[in-house]
């Protein structure tokens, strides 16, 4: 394990196994009456969320609290950031307060890496711009391994707005690392040109792929990032790349339907498809807490170089 979690590029296949196995033990803790263990008692975890996110922040907050760490939530609105403080000064303030780990979500790609140059704390990337979202990728890998019993050789389609999706990038890298076969599917305008360097296939025809999939991973259409018109209309998008009931019926019986949330029901996924048994979207959320507990435990549970300074 590295000292920080910034990108799925830094996570080896052996790391994935260790993280997923550790998360398995934390899943059991989540089923107890007392869902809390003293593993990180006395450590301080700062959630530095400079871009809006409720789901990921709550998941990290719960993960840290279940490990008995002290949690501080720091968000853009109403903080010194709103008064014009730079990321560097914010980081140095957190450092001075003795943060052991900083979980950072930021609209600029690369800001978690920048943060590691200023602070001694362990840095966990909780989503940076359109770059990466490694904890989401790991919880998705956990869910796939739990349901299929393996990752090697799994046929996975990642469907939709790949261009703006940090989830798609992290998940593609992670899946390729563990030997899965990944196909990115979407309108040509939403597939990044460099995707061919990720070790994945690209397709523009969802219907052709559907009957051969082990996992159909639907991405959210990020309306807030659609400054340009990437496709003619939502209706056309839904018809060509949405997971409709008709398409879902063509999936193999063992195939999983996944989505990182929050969903646009009726756009990338039909409402009744999201609620059918093959859909494991809620389990992804539950697994997210266990994965984040595992990562905090593995990073903070060792004497990293970060504590030597």
């Amino acid at each position: 394990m590295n000292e920080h979690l910034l990108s799925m590029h830094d996570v080896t296949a052996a790391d994935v196994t260790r993280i997923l196995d550790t998360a398995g033990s934390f899943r059991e803790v989540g089923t107890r009456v007392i869902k809390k263990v003293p593993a990180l008692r006395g450590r301080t975890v700062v959630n530095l969320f400079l871009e809006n996110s409720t789901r990921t922040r709550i998941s990290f907050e719960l993960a840290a609290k279940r490990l008995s760490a002290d949690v501080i939530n720091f968000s853009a609105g109403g903080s010194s950031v709103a008064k014009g403080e730079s990321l560097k000064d914010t980081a140095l303030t957190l450092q001075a307060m003795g943060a052991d780990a900083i979980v950072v979500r930021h609209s600029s790609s690369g800001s978690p890496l920048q943060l590691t140059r200023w602070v001694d704390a362990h840095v966990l990337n909780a989503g940076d711009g359109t770059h990466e979202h490694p904890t989401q990728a790991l919880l998705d890998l956990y869910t796939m391994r739990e349901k299929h019993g393996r990752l090697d050789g799994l046929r996975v389609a990642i469907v939709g707005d790949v261009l703006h999706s940090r989830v798609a990038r992290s998940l593609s890298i992670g899946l390729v690392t563990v030997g899965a076969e990944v196909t990115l599917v979407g309108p040509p305008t939403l597939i990044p040109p460099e995707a061919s360097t990720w070790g994945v296939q690209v397709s523009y025809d969802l219907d052709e792929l559907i009957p051969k999939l082990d996992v159909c991973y639907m991405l959210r259409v990020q309306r807030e990032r659609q400054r340009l018109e990437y496709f003619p209309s939502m209706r056309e998008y839904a018809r060509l790349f949405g997971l409709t009931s008709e398409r879902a019926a063509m999936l193999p019986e063992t195939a999983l339907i996944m989505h990182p949330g929050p969903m646009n029901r009726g756009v990338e996924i039909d409402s009744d498809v999201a609620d059918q048994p093959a859909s494991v979207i809620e389990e992804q959320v539950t697994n997210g807490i266990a994965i984040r507990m595992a990562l905090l435990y593995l990073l903070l549970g060792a004497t990293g170089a970060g504590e030597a300074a």
Partner: protein
Amino acid sequence: MTATVMTADDIRRAVTRIAHEILERDKGAADVVLVGIADRGDDLARRLAAEVSRIERAEVPVGVLDITFYRDDIGLRAEAPEVHETRIAFDVSGKVVVLVDDVLYTGRTIRSAMDALMDLGRPRKIQLAVLVDRGHRELPIRADFVGKNVPTSRDDNVRVQVQEVDGSDAVTVRRVGDGEEGA
């Protein structure tokens, strides 16, 4: 140099004797549950349970406890300690819980195990059974049932092998200064 302090037969006899002692102390197997500390303690717990069942003709529930999250040295080692699985499919509240471990040494593992158990419920009693007590306690903890007391120096390496994990049963002590890698 390495000395064998318990053979497979010695271990078998010790397990049988401890099973009898548990039944004697707790006046039968009612309310008795066995919880082994991963790893190897759980294998010994299963053997003890089988002996108790054979003697008393009563089923004794067995669970596995992982104490990693309750350790007092998290963050003090280069790598975070490896995590095992906790599998206790019964309620420990009101039960006589016999903790089972392979070696009793500093007592820190047992302290962690008691904390972990308390988070799962409120046992009526907690007792401790170990295959080997090698001394050098750092906490006020003692075992209720001991397979064998083995005097050691702090630098000695006590190794318990069980069939289930290591392919054979034995307890060996490796004295210092023999240049071999510790287990």
